[in-house]
């Protein structure tokens, strides 16, 4: 497993089946109640995140696995979550 610190990208860039590690949220995002809720369900810096499925319509929302849970979030929010891609 190679972690490349330079390669920070939005979660929305990961394809189904790809996984990464969460770096954090965009600065303005981290003030919003929604992102606090994401923290609470486990979208924490350092956690592993895997993109599982894209919705059939418009490829939005996406489903992701974080900790033991699978959650659906929209691309609009996924764009504001920074991750590093993880290669296995």
């Amino acid at each position, binding site marked *: 497993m190679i972690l490349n610190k330079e390669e920070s990208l939005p979660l929305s860039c990961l394809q189904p089946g790809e996984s990464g590690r969460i770096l954090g949220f965009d600065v303005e995002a981290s003030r919003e109640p929604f992102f606090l809720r994401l923290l609470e369900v486990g979208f924490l810096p350092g956690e592993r995140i895997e993109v599982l499925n894209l919705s059939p319509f418009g490829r939005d929302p996406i489903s992701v696995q974080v900790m033991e849970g699978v959650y*659906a979030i929209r691309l609009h929010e996924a764009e504001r979550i920074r991750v590093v891609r993880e290669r296995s």
Partner: protein
Amino acid sequence: MSKKRIALVGTPNAGKTALFNALTRSHQRTANYSGVTVESAEADLALPGGEVCSLVDLPGAYSLRPYTEDEGVLTRSLIGQGYDGMILVADATQPERSIRFMLEVLDSTSIPCVIALNMMDLAESRGFRFDLSRLETEGGVPVVSCSALRKTGLKPVLHLLEKAIAGPRREKHVFFPPPEVNETPEQSSRRILEFYKRADSIKKAVLIRSGDPDTRSRKIDRVVLHPVWGLVVLVAILGLTFQLMFNLAQVPMDLIEGAVSGLQEWVNHLEIPILARSFLADGVLAGVGGTLVFLPQILILFSMILLLEDVGFMARAVFILDHLMGKVGLHGRAFLPLLSSYACAVPGIMATRTMEERRDRILTTWIIPLTTCSARLPVYALLISAFIPNIEVLGGLKLQGLVMLGLYAAGLLSALILGAILKKLLFKKGRPPLLIELPSYKRPSFRSLLKGLLYRARLFLVRVGTVILVLSILIWGLLSFPRAGDGSALPIESTYAGRIGKTLEPALSPLGFDWRIGMALVPTFAAREVMVSTLATVYAVEERNEAGESADLGEILRKEWGVATGLSLLVWFIFAPMCLSTLATVRRELQGTKHAVFMTLYLFALAYGASWATFSLVSRWVR
């Protein structure tokens, strides 16, 4: 002495309701909470020692910092209301989340508590191993592993609960500093991160071995959320639901109708004054029976909804439909409320509680009355049989069936158009974000399903026995009084109802409605389906006065009204200014008379405009 109250709390999908159903015999009543009125189930719980407590099933939440109105209910009632004990349900297959929530709850209250580590069977089969005594030491409360579905470990839960509530209040552990009253987002996020570190260290101590990921759900999702197969599955499920609702329900509906008319027949031969007979047969039985007939449809729709929720499909439906719903300004979560509304708008509106943003709740609630609730069905059925020729078109398709389908489509289409317009006019801001958990697929529990259904059935029957009964009697009174000097019935136009109809006639004649229809429309505010029985009464009374025998209502209507009137009335019912109980629900749920008034006005305007257009067009076209 009043019963002790025990709260049942836990994260969503932790199996709280399954545990509730396993521990109690029945849903006894619904509890109303102050603040936002949200109903939670409450039932008697017998402790091993013989004491009977009241177990309250509170809404699930991810944290006590409320995000949806649902979660607000939990926080307020846990912190504000006096519970004597609490069962904290934790999902053993999700130890991280469960431990976090557990610590937060134990921190915030001093209510004596037992932790039920649920779904232990599933967790063990996936390889999870826990150090339960370590968890007990860390939390300072007893922990029992159990499975609500297999009914294992339930007795120890009750035993320990009994012991806990007999003892003193717990001392609050402080795992992390409590939230400030007006915490800034930065403070919150720092607090959450701090808390996580603590929770994580406790988790690491308690969890001896972590289980394998849930690969089965992933495999199922590969089909259910597939771009093509996913849609096939969704359409098949919806198709099956409606098919069952309209075909399977027919048999019990006929039985109920038969039973009611049998009772009416019996009443009509009783040796009691004619007014009393009429009161029982035309007032009580006709009104209550006319509504009771929908029970099978409501039960079928709700068994599908409960089943899909139980299995874990509802969240997937939201996932699939969110993008499409967004085009008309709706939240993906609006799917369930809208689906429920095909049975009845009232549970539909109540289901909007799960939406995070008030804006979404308002928008969904506004368009719900346009979905075709089952109360419209008998009216549609009557008018279609009367005015749409029973012929086959387009190679074998029944025209009547097509019109019925068209009416449903018209309702849905107008709902979507209205949604798009409202979104443009009122809610210019972007969509609020979505976060929904896709839970592991679970085998449904028959018992749990049955309980949910019984609960729904009871709510419905209570409504029939109270609101509908009173209104039916009231309408009967309007149709039967005043009486002539010798006590016999006056011609229908002289009754109070007739006078109301006559008063309304000038306003309704542009739509092709005469005073009789005007009269029949009045009680539809109580319940739309009453239209049929009112028309039956009106025309039965008239026919009896003239010829002395009654004919088929559809035939009478065809004779009495023109096609234009019939179609105009059909269209009226697509929008049909909704029933009072819907309005009351809107007012209660959105906490504002304003919304209820606006909704009535817009529905009236739509119904009036569309009926007027239909009547004008058709009467020009069909001479």
